């Protein structure tokens, strides 16, 4: 069945993107805020409809797209990310001189791609979704056309991204050749035969898929692009791709590996074990030496992908639901931390090194308090959401029998504490030397910070309900 009506949220996002594109051509004054308003209205509308799809468990387009709780959970997450990104961007892109209507349109199109990453149940859908989001984000990364750094980051991201998606595609082609279909259900059925598990062509295809997804979620050794691209892109775009692209890629990664390739667990779990350990150690160690705060957050994002891999390796009930929980917390706290960076950043890339945060607390106590909250959450200190997420992940690893990996994870978090606390020390222990902002904190950015801060604290204090939701989402995967 086609069931077009099930895709209403996606269609709303797409139409909003097109409307924004057309509205931008009209010669109205003050239209930029109007464009952002249209964008937010569209995403919030799509969010409400998505929430209404909970427990629907339907398929659309002859099994190419699934509307199950897993996809609803992720789609809601992406729409929240999109709304917060637009709120954070309104002031920033005016200041940065990149106040073009295409910006919002591309953010919405990337969100459209994210949504299909979570709901695609056919390798064709997943590939197309990956390309839609990648193309939009490549352009966004180079959006500051006159900044050599922004151009360079878009260039690097594009070349390495296209390279990795070619590998993903070759993996898909091999799997198609073995199974005779690209639908995840048919692949799962094929794998239920004993002999299928040893097919070398299939295993090669699976390895190539792992490379493709590993690149998008930025795990070592496929992380080389991350620091450069995160540093060079406009900061709002960095925030958007650090949370959105990562969460979307993990959504497809989980669906393919947890549900479809589950019978091959014996093959991919050891590989992921190694990648998780290397990612956590490498990301956290290199982050210590960074002077630029965006670069530091990039390495922290790499390390966080490692923590999520730990939960994937554990693979038990708690592990799988903690991935969804952690991705939600990660999105909120990372958007919050980047939000503060966005507010403090000035034109010409001023205020971007860690020592620039010297004495921020004496000029802007609320901003520093929010930043401290997000950093403590990233480090995993109670009572924040980050602590609960890490706690669930590591206890899942221990109960799954991966004590060694859990120890590596805890050690990594201990290293991470150093570089997160360093910023807090700079903010509180030094005297301010300059004015940070040209005016008051912009209203929309402040609103986004308040939302993320409340979310981070709530997830830390009452995690049970969201964890239950996450559990329901993933346990119905493929049913």
């Amino acid at each position, binding site marked *: 069945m086609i069931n077009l009506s099930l895709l209403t949220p996606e269609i709303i996002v797409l139409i909003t993107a097109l409307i924004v594109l057309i509205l931008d051509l009209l010669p109205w004054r003050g239209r930029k805020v109007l464009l952002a308003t249209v964008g937010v209205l569209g995403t919030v509308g799509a969010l409400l409809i998505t929430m209404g799809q909970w427990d629907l468990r339907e398929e659309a387009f002859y099994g190419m797209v699934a509307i199950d709780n897993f996809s609803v959970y992720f789609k809601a997450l992406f729409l929240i990310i999109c709304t917060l990104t637009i709120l954070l961007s309104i002031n920033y892109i005016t200041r940065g001189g990149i106040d073009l209507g295409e910006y919002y349109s591309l953010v919405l199109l990337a969100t459209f791609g994210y949504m299909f990453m979570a709901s695609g149940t056919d390798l*064709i859908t997943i*590939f*197309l979704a990956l*390309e839609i989001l990648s*193309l939009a984000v*490549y*352009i966004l990364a*180079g959006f500051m*056309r*006159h*900044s*050599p*750094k922004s*151009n*360079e*980051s*878009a*260039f*690097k991201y*594009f*070349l390495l991204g*296209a*390279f990795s998606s*070619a590998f993903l*595609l*070759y993996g*898909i*082609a*091999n799997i*198609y*050749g073995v199974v*005779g*279909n*690209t639908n995840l259900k048919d692949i799962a059925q094929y794998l239920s035969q004993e002999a299928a598990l040893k097919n070398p062509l299939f295993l090669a295809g699976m390895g190539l898929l792992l490379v493709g997804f590993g690149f998008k979620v930025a795990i070592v050794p496929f992380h080389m692009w991350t*620091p*450069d691209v995160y*540093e*060079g892109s406009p900061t709002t775009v960095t925030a958007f791709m650090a949370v959105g692209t990562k969460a979307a890629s993990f959504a497809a990664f989980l669906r393919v590996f947890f549900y479809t390739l589950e019978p091959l667990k014996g093959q991919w779990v050891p590989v992921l074990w190694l990648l998780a350990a290397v990612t956590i150690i490498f990301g956290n160690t*290199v982050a210590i030496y960074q002077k630029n705060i965006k*670069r530091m957050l990039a390495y922290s994002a790499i390390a966080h992908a490692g923590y999520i891999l730990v939960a994937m390796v554990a693979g038990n009930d708690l592990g799988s639901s903690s991935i969804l929980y952690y991705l939600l917390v990660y999105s909120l706290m990372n958007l919050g931390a980047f939000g503060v960076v966005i507010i403090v950043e000035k034109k010409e890339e001023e205020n971007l090194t860690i020592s620039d945060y010297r004495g921020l607390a004496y000029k802007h106590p609320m901003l520093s308090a929010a930043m401290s909250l997000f950093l403590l959450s990233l480090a995993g200190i109670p009572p924040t959401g980050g602590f609960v997420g890490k706690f669930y992940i590591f206890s899942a690893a221990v109960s799954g029998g991966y004590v060694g990996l859990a120890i590596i994870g805890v050690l990594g978090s201990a290293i991470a504490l150093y570089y997160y606390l360093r910023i807090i020390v700079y903010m509180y222990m030094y005297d301010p030397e300059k004015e940070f902002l040209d005016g008051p904190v912009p209203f929309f950015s402040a609103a986004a910070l308040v939302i993320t801060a409340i979310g981070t604290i709530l997830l830390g204090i009452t995690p049970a309900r969201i964890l239950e939701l996450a559990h329901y989402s993933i346990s119905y995967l493929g049913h």
Partner: protein
Amino acid sequence: MIPISHYLTLGAIIFIIGSIGVLTRKNAIIILMSIELMLNGVNITLVAFSYHLADLTGQIFAIFVVAVAAGEAAVGLAIIIALFRCRATVNVDEIQLLKW
């Protein structure tokens, strides 16, 4: 009749030529061409499997890949032009403002 392994080998060879091109070439445009070559290697594989399996999915997928490759080429060219205007070079060795 030409056996399927010939087509698969051809596809694999083209894919490998493309990936070697990406890794060794210095000119951004040639790297872009190499990526297109990789995608076309995949296309040959897909169509060969499609014929072998008597299943149309592979050929439809190949058409999608062609369309995606066009989009990628357009975005890639646009990024390279923007970079060239900014830096007056397309040599990847000279593009190294961002370093760890």
